[in-house]
């Protein structure tokens, strides 16, 4: 039972840290967030293209 409580505490800590990170990201400036969106687009585009989907990575600079 102690083990389960420890696991729950650890999980709670991890989930709280993830949520805190999401809130930090949400608070960033719009241009900074758009740059992150474009990085995501670059990372995912090859996978989508391999599946036959046509996608365009934004050119923002």
């Amino acid at each position, binding site marked *: 039972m102690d083990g389960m409580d420890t696991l729950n505490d650890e999980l709670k800590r991890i989930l709280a840290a993830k949520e805190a990170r999401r809130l930090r990201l*949400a608070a960033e400036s*719009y241009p900074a*967030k758009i740059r*992150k969106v474009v990085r*995501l687009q670059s990372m995912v585009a090859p996978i989508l293209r391999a599946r036959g989907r046509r996608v365009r990575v934004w050119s923002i600079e």
Partner: protein
Amino acid sequence: MRKTLEALNALEVEGVIRRYAIGGAAAAVFYMEPFLTYDLDVFVSLPADQGGIVSLAPIYQAARKLGFGEEGEHIIVEGVPVQFLPAYNALLKEALDQAREISYEVTVTRVFRPEHLMAIMLQTGRDKDRQRLEAFRRQATWDAAYFDGILIRHGLLERWMEWIR
């Protein structure tokens, strides 16, 4: 992106579009953590022609004159695929009218208010809207009283109660 927004502002100044605002995923990113999207949804109100018909054709004509290419339903405005969408229902018209003016670096633009984005997610009602709304309402700062007004005006209160149950 700044050049894209400047081009949109120029279309408005030139009267090709009456008013525009960013909606959809790109607007949601303004208020919440960044997530993957490939579309820049731009909602517009358009001047009606002499017969009272509203058409996106003038946008496409202006885009061609400016040398912007087209890909499917998108116009590639300075490297960004923009989907122009008329504000086609009462909720979208209100969202466009009440959109917030913001600055992107030194360029002024407009995005839908968070409360309207939430209502649009509710109205659209797909699984991905429901998931996004769940995250959005935790991460974004929004005005509950203002949102309640939108829900009542647009008949969305019942669905909201169902979704947050």
